[in-house]
């Protein structure tokens, strides 16, 4: 679920933005924390298996002699019911989490931004019709539509990703429409129109690129939110299936014996929490830096 900027800030980021962003990420403790986490996630996603102490177990190989070991020096996060090292599984699982969320957000943007840009630029009946459609999708409580779609298509990570993308595109449509409306009246758009550039080109070449700032800010926050949503779906069984090292799935698997072997569910859940927290913090940071009032 996305709570976006109150007013879309269009055009290029203000001067000195890169500078202030760097300062915020490096000096502010919360910013630094988020930066570290996100970089770590990306690294884990790329070279996960190489980083994990027990890469095979990370992928799913069991080890009967090491079942349900509590956290120790050999196994920082302990082991699960199949003797697999949880730290390794968390590391390897980062790829799934990140890839799925980026895919979902990318797909949602690919669908939503053009629809919103066209609606905002065209106004009139096209705008009305497209917005009516968008509102319909937004009328579903968060995740309910996704759950219904996954139920219809059958469980599985790809179905979950598709379902989430279908639930998410309306937010980008709305955002893109907002920026398109503010950009529409700008002199350079009017100039382009007056020299005969076709609408399609205007939307593609001018409206969309200039709308990217708020959209990318939203996308950053959404990556975190989608990790949470995908994890939640996996927890109730609508996502990845065993033996995949999916964080949500791991929490569900550990649930049966959580009271005595608390580590099996705790660490994967912690991974989700920390990842979402980092993206939310970055999102807040970006929003503060781009807030037109603070820059005035």
């Amino acid at each position, binding site marked *: *679920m996305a*709570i976006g900027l109150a007013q879309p800030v269009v055009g290029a980021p203000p001067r000195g933005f890169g500078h202030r962003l760097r300062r915020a990420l490096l000096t502010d403790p919360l910013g630094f924390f988020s930066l570290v986490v996100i970089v770590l996630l990306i690294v884990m996603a790329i070279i996960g298996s190489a980083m994990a102490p027990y890469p095979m177990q990370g992928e799913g190989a069991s080890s009967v002699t090491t079942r349900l070991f509590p956290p120790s020096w050999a196994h920082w996060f302990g082991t699960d019911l199949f003797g697999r090292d949880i730290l390794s599984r968390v590391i390897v699982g980062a790829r799934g989490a990140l890839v799925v969320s980026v895919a979902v957000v990318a797909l949602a943007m690919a669908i939503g931004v053009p629809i919103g840009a066209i609606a905002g630029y065209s106004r009139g009946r096209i705008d009305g019709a497209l917005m*009516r459609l968008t*509102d*319909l*999708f937004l*009328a*579903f*409580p*968060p*995740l*309910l*539509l996704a*759950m*219904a*779609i*996954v*139920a*219809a298509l*059958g*469980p599985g990570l790809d179905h979950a990703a598709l379902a989430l993308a279908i639930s998410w595109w309306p937010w980008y449509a709305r955002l893109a429409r907002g920026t398109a409306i503010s950009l529409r009246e700008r002199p350079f758009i009017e100039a382009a129109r007056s020299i005969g550039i076709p609408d399609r080109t205007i939307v593609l070449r001018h409206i969309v690129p200039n709308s990217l700032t708020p959209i990318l800010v939203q996308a950053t926050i959404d990556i*975190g939110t989608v990790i*949470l949503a995908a*994890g*939640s779906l996996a*927890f*109730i*069984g*609508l996502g990845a299936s065993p033996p995949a090292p999916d964080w*949500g799935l791991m*929490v569900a698997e550990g*649930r049966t014996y*959580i*009271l*005595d072997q*608390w580590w099996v*569910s*705790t660490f994967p*859940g*912690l991974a*989700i*929490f920390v990842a*979402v*927290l980092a993206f*939310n*913090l970055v999102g*807040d940071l970006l929003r503060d830096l781009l807030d037109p009032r603070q820059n005035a």
Partner: protein
Amino acid sequence: MTRFVVRRLAGSALVLLGLSVITFTLARVIPSNPAALYIGPKARPEEIERVTRQLGLDQAPPVQYLTYMRDMLTGDWGTSIGTKRPVLEEIVSRLPATLELIAAAMALAIPLGIVLGVLSARWQRRPPDVLVRVVSIVGVSLPAFWLGLLLQVVFFRNLDLLPLSGRVSADLRFTAPIEPITGLYLVDAALGWNWAAFVDASRHLVLPALTLAAFPIGLIARMTRASMIETLDQDYIRTARAYGLRDRFVTYRLALRNALLPVLTVVGLTLAYSLTGSFFVEIVFNWPGLGTFAVHSMLNVDYPAIMGIALFGAAAYVLINLVVDLAQAWLDPRVRLA
């Protein structure tokens, strides 16, 4: 104002209509064999034929839609493949448990969120503000299902303070059973002067409600803070100060009223979040409500149940939005007395 109300009601009706089209599409148009999904895995050919005719699946889609609408409006939402009972009946019977959970979570989240947001705005950039901002962002980032599990470990296993799951202790059913009147255990227990049950049900409600309230608290606190800060910057607050009104009066009796108006929208959003959020919380705490039913239906591909729940949830959200919009309009004299 009446014109506004009429327009909003019409708008909501239209949205409900549109939603029914979506659920219809999901239920009848997209699946390759909707009749088989409707009956279940052990469907025999003659049954499939009967259902095909009953649901009008051999007709053109527009006609199918009309059949679908007729069924929905008359209360025939199909039969649950899992429980063999009518879907609508299943939903209604489990609703009170979920309502009690959501009500408890909201009763906690709304006052707490608002108080935190106001304090945060009042003491900007000082420790209370920092604390509240940390709490808020943690609240909106926490996976509810994970939080629930952690609370179970800490409060049940480690501290032995609160029960693990369910709505009431098993033995209470014999020692002090609750007379079902509304289906809300706290209310029913109180109405029947059954204090043992009241206490027991309350204890069972604590952890699930807390878990469900985390996200709303975070979101409401953030939005209240932002709204208060913006309100305190307004001309009319400057006027109030210019006339010597006391700081506490200006903040809590004047600015707060203005700031809370937009917060109402956020409250609606958190209610919507709770609708689906309760699914996860119910699973973790074995809470016998709509959520558990929904999740089991999804895992068992109980198609009629899934579609029924989807439509129900969407309709509930439309209703929530309608109420929030109308409440906001009524509370704002600029709309109420346009």
